[in-house]
């Protein structure tokens, strides 16, 4: 087990700057996810931790040790690749055994044919195979040890790749989009298995994904990366409820957050001609409303925004109402309702073709023109400023 420290990492490919001064402290034993759109540098950062890529400047520490210039295999990390990268000519057992063979056998004992001359090799291989079987049992691969990767399903290959990583008992696991080659149902299942594995092993997990659902469901902390920088680092709840910027708010959350242009008029916020019942903050330019931050209300309710309903999705336990705000710039807004709330609103006649949506002051997020989130200053300092 080990903490991982990244200190001012920079990396360019050709003229493209992929990582710009990334500093990140990953705690011992935590499940940290690097999430972001493709091209944000998250995979490159993971490969730099693994030692597969060399940073242009900055340093990496694993445990207490600086590992710049240390070979990938000597960093005490294991990696799971998106393609699994299993050796296709070796059986499942030999695939999982490979890291141990490399550690414990001499070069001569690893060579084809020549290895048959060594009596020591057979003894060591027996020990390795015992460990392989233990790992296979933990991953429910016992019956498959004699098969080749081509004879396995995607989920089974995934588990073999995990087994190959686990068998070395690494301090940290690095995972590069390990679930993206699986079908949707299996992905949900493996999400649970990975989280479970993390709890059992207690090792540090660094997980790269572009899928915010994976990031939100498995991680202790999430580092959201945009354009080679860490835009925000925090728990999934922090990223969702208290995004630092509009970019974070737009990336995290499904359906996406609605971004409504607002203006300050006579100490009040106005959106598309409607005076909002929200506390005004100077410099506010954009109102961010997540699907659960609006509720349909009766016509004439103060602060409600007029909208047109374009479609409604029934997800069983809840409904998603897709609407467009009326006004000079039509803005899409989604409203999430529990099934009971939906039925009540429908019975009250609130869900016509035209509907009024009231933002929840506790959940509404305000951003300035540069996309920075604005937080209402505590009351006391405001009084102080006024005095």
């Amino acid at each position, binding site marked *: 087990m080990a903490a991982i420290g990244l200190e001012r990492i920079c990396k360019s490919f050709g003229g493209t700057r992929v990582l710009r001064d990334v500093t990140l402290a990953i705690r011992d034993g935590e499940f940290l996810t690097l999430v972001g759109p493709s091209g944000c540098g998250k995979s490159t950062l993971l490969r730099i931790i*693994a*030692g*597969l890529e060399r940073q242009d400047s900055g340093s990496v520490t694993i445990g207490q040790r600086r590992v710049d210039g240390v*070979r*990938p*295999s000597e960093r005490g*990390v*294991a*990696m799971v*690749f998106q*393609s699994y*990268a*299993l*050796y*296709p*000519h*070796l059986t499942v057992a030999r695939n999982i055994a*490979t*890291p141990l063979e*490399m*550690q414990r056998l001499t*070069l001569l004992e*690893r*060579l*084809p044919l020549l290895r048959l001359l060594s009596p020591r090799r057979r003894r060591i291989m027996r020990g390795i195979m015992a460990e392989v079987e233990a790992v296979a049992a933990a991953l429910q691969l016992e019956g498959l040890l004699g098969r*080749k*990767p*081509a004879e396995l399903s995607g989920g089974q290959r995934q588990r073999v790749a995990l087994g*190959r990583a686990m068998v070395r008992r690494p301090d940290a696991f690095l995972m590069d989009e390990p679930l993206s080659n699986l079908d949707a149902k299996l992905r949900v299942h493996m999400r649970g298995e990975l989280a479970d594995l993390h709890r059992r092993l207690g090792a540090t997990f660094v997980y790269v994904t572009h899928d915010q659902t994976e990031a939100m469901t498995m991680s202790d902390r999430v580092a959201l990366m945009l354009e080679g920088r860490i835009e925000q680092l925090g728990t999934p709840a922090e990223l969702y409820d208290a995004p630092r910027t509009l970019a974070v708010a737009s990336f995290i959350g499904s359906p996406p957050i609605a971004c409504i242009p607002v203006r300050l008029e006579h100490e009040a916020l106005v959106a598309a001609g409607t005076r909002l019942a929200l506390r005004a903050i100077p410099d506010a330019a954009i109102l961010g409303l997540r699907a659960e931050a609006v509720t349909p209300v009766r016509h004439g309710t103060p602060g409600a925004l007029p909208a047109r309903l374009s479609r409604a999705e029934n997800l069983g336990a809840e409904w998603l109402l897709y609407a467009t705000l009326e006004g000079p710039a039509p803005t899409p807004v989604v409203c999430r309702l529990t099934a009971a709330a939906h039925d009540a609103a429908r019975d009250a006649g609130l869900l016509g073709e035209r509907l009024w949506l009231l933002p929840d002051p506790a959940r509404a997020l305000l951003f300035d023109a540069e996309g920075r989130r604005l937080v209402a200053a505590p009351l006391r300092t405001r009084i102080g400023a006024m005095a």
Partner: protein
Amino acid sequence: MSLALAAPAPVEPFALRIGHAYAAPAALLLALIYIVPVSVLIWLSLTDYTLGAVDIRFLGLDNFSRALADPVFRRSITNTFAYVAIVLPGGVLLGLGAALLVHRRIRSRSLWEVIYFLPVTSTLIAMATVWQFLLHPRLGPVREITLALGLGEVAFLSDPALVLPTLAAIGIWQLVGFNMILFLAGLSAIPRDLYEAAALDGASGGIDRFFRVTWPQLGPTTMFVTVTTSITAFKVFDTVRVLTEGGPAGASEVLLYVIYLEGFQYFRIGYAAALTLIFLAFILAFSILQAAALDRRIHY
């Protein structure tokens, strides 16, 4: 209705004709290129036909039993196998080695590719003449090297013990570039992920990388290269015809050269046809054997 269900519906005659029409071009080509010539060959091999002869006698399998007892033919088989035994490992391993070296080069890669590939594009007959000059025991530049090494004058092409290895070396020289290109294609197709996984597993040295990833991944390429190289080597003819004409004292008489002599110098077409069939049988056996042997290991 019940009748139609009882028996399978007969194929509509029109649909059948359409089907035949679609198959006809391929069938015709197959017949013209393979089936008819081989049939004629088989028929000729059972006769005593000589070029220009008016009457033909049917001999049955006499030509074949004669061939098996013919010392010239038997020696040519031994010589051919000896030649293949040198060219096959030499051509494959040197091709692989060249590919591994050239693959690492980034900017100079295409230059090296051209250099190694040049012998493939050149006419072997013309090149054989150049080799004849190079290897000439009195006039050739190679003489200087053998003298410097203290080996004296070496008669590469007229010493019975050296003539086959010398021809084989020329054969390898001509094949290496082609095999290298095939291996380069195979090397480019190996996923980078595998090397990275190997690096994390601890297989970062060149030897481990080669035996964990490169060599197993090149399995299909190696099989293809082995089969084409052995068939090409088995068909050796041009260098023998130009450089040695089978000499000295039959030491470089190979299968195809004997067939050529029988068919086109002595005009014994029937006998030559029988030898050709034996030659084809060898090639077929070669391909089947290698495909079967390598098949078990390359299908993942």
